[in-house]
């Protein structure tokens, strides 16, 4: 299989790229929702992310990618307990997937042929400590959505069925993409995504031509193209790692907390999740920029992506909520 299109070679789409990077720096931000038309590079960016992310340490062969041997669930039979580096998992959740595939289920194979009651882990196990990507998330069936909501909130997948009683860690960054024309997302699911960005095709001919040129080069001279962008991808990876360290040392002054709270109150965002995400996103953004202290500027820059999908929304309101956030930001921070 061909290596995916390099992340750094994606032209424009800065919001989308930034939001993905922020979740890489602080996975607890809780996922990204990318809404936009077809052919705007949504899936390209997510697939490129897999190659970009720094590797994780995990027990070899562990179905839930446990970090330490003692975290390996007891239903998993492993031959070795050696810990080694592995790429951060980026798992695709295809549309129309069955519940069994998502949560895992009784291993029918083992049950029928060997008469054993074994657990076959599902996609949630595979995505633990990594990313779970849902393309066309707005077309996902409701019962799968319910299931994901439950797991995303608790960080644990509980399987109680067919005589099995299994629980395992399932902490993942949920990345969803979709085309708003094909349907809307339930507010409950919207709220679970930490950040939300809207993408469109580049408006100017120049960047469109640039996209075409790069894509063409990728298709025609693959090896050279990958080599050309390898260094820039590596630079981003380095910055993510530095950012993760910087995040721990970053100060959060009280006035920034006040800023965040004022902003959320002014916008009427539901619940405290908005405040927390905005704060986390601003901190991750500051760490990414390698700034030493959190300031109003950081909050201002990430406010739209952290809050636009949380506004108490009249389902019939057609004004873009992104502009609404920006307007309120201008007023509050004037």
């Amino acid at each position: 299989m061909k290596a995916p299109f390099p992340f750094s070679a994606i032209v424009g789409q800065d919001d989308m790229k930034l939001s993905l990077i922020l979740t890489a720096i602080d996975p607890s931000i809780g996922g990204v929702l990318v809404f936009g038309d077809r052919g705007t590079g949504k899936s390209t960016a997510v697939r490129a992310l897999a190659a970009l992310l720094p590797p994780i340490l995990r027990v070899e062969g562990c179905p839930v990618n446990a970090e330490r041997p003692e975290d390996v669930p007891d239903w998993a039979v492993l031959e070795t307990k050696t810990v080694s580096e592995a790429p951060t998992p980026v798992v695709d959740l295809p549309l129309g997937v069955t519940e069994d595939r998502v949560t895992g289920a009784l291993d029918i194979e083992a049950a029928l042929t060997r008469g054993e009651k074994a657990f076959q882990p599902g996609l949630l196990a595979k995505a633990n400590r990594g990313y779970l990507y849902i393309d066309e998330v707005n077309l996902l069936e409701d019962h799968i959505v319910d299931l994901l909501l439950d797991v995303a909130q608790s960080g644990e997948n509980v399987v109680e069925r067919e005589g099995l009683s299994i629980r395992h860690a399932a902490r993942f960054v949920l990345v969803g993409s979709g085309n708003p024309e094909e349907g809307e997302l339930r507010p409950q699911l919207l709220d679970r995504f930490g950040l939300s960005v809207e993408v469109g095709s580049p408006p100017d001919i120049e960047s469109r031509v640039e996209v075409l040129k790069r894509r063409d080069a990728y298709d025609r001279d693959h090896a050279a193209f990958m080599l050309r962008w390898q260094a820039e991808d590596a630079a981003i990876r380095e910055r993510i790692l530095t950012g993760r360290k910087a995040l721990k040392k970053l100060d959060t002054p009280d006035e920034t907390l006040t800023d965040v709270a004022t902003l959320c109150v002014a916008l009427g965002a539901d619940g405290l999740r908005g405040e927390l995400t905005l704060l986390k996103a601003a901190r991750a953004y500051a760490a990414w920029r390698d700034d030493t202290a959190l300031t109003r500027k950081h909050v201002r820059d990430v406010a739209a992506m952290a809050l636009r999908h949380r506004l108490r929304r009249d389902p019939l309101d057609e004004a873009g909520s992104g502009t609404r956030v920006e307007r309120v930001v201008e007023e509050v921070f004037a």
Partner: protein
Amino acid sequence: MPDFASPLFHAALALDLVAIDPGLGGLVLRARSGFVRDAVVGRLSRLPLPLTRLHPQVSDEALYGGLDLAATLAAGTIVQEQGLLTTPSTLLLSMAERCPPGLAARLAGCMDREAGHMLIALDEGAEPDEACSPTLADRVAFRVDLEGATLAETRAPLDAPDLAEARARLAQTMVTLDLHRQTAELAVAFGVDGLRAPMFAIRAARAHAALRDAPLAAADVEVACAMVLAHRATRIPERDEDTETESPEPPPPDDGDGAEETPDQDSLEIPQELLLEAVSALLPPDLLDQLQARALRGARGSGAGAVQKGNRRGRPLPSRPGRPGNGARVDLVGTLRTAAPWQRMRAETAAVRDGLHIRASDIRLKRYEDRSDRVLIFAVDASGSAALARLAEAKGAIELLLGEAYARRDYVSLIAFRGTASEVLLPPTRSLVQTKRRLAELPGGGGTPLAAGLQTAMAEAEAARRRGMSPTICVLTDGRANIALDGSADRKQAAADAEKIARIARASRIEGLVLDCGNRPERSLATLADVMGARYLALPRANAERLSAAVSAALGD
């Protein structure tokens, strides 16, 4: 410029280009099954990869491979089965217009991974709104409509150039034009927003040049843009020089090759007009209709509509024999219960082996009963008699109902009738923003073509039912029908027509609701509702909230 008047030639050229550069993804072939289509499908053997046939109900096991249950149970050891997608092949998807969103997403994912698959989607849609899923159509370069191709044409020999040689030439094709800019600008001019299309156009131009065994020239770009962009166009660019006709006439077919006529253009920019002309020639004649018909299709299930039996959720029903896969869940207890009586007999006859003896025929599947999605079809009277104030009230009521429909996850469709005809303002959708926008734009005035409105609503309801949804028609009007189906202002005929349609609606058991929002209750409307088997609600001086409450009550929730 080749002669695209012959759809068969068009299809053959598209297939040749795909064979030269598999990166073009493939082709959507819109045609009913028949000799003409068979002639094109016959040429698929020229593609470099083996052919794999898919149908819209293909299961995950078949696609991705998995346990071969019958063989496994017989052998007592695990026997794996290969999936259709495991090795690169040309996927031939028949009845592509029936492809469910789940399969479309999976195939799209498979194409995106660039494992080397090609997709030939046979779209057999009869109506304009029955079409291959846009998710798939976007990922293949070409679309050919075989309508209008005659049997005689299938006999005309199509040249069969050596594709293997052309493929070898592909990498060496010289490019002297600013291909990227040309295609990008052209795509914008035709309102093609995504960047896959210009990408395909570039590849197609190269493949065409390789096919001709010549350096890439203006003619290649013309052909490529015409084939890739024309069917994706969302608008017709304005041309400065002359705006002779609204619908662009196909230019007279050139006798010679375009490149011969313009040999000096190889290193120059191609005049934009030339490309515009080339693409316009291939624009589908019913472009505007198609734009409207790009209906929104979504997931189904768990709505408030009619009951349908499924195998994944809802209220449990007794289990049935069957094969696991395609999302079905095995009822383990049921399976064991079926197998239990045979254990002793099987243990005696079968080879020495411990454990249970279960055969494929013992497998029982779980079944559930679920409700399908409901679609509310609003047929709104926007005639002159429904004076402006009333129309505004009707709009207000519909907006309230929309809010409720949103909460119930119902689909909504909007039809307006006024003047002499009715039109579908919005095909079934869950997107409320769109509905509201269309509603706000709804103009008023003219006669009351009630029959036409009912007819359109019926057609919409039938289409929705075919897609597995449960339709409910909600007619909002205030008066007697005064325009007949043929558009004449004949009250008597109009009433008869409306009654006829109402009778058909009753026969096809479509749920209905007639809301009389006139100043005084109108007797003829009550009769009409009776004929239709619909509920009649007179709401003199209705305000939006009362209307909405009435509909909610009538719909039983």
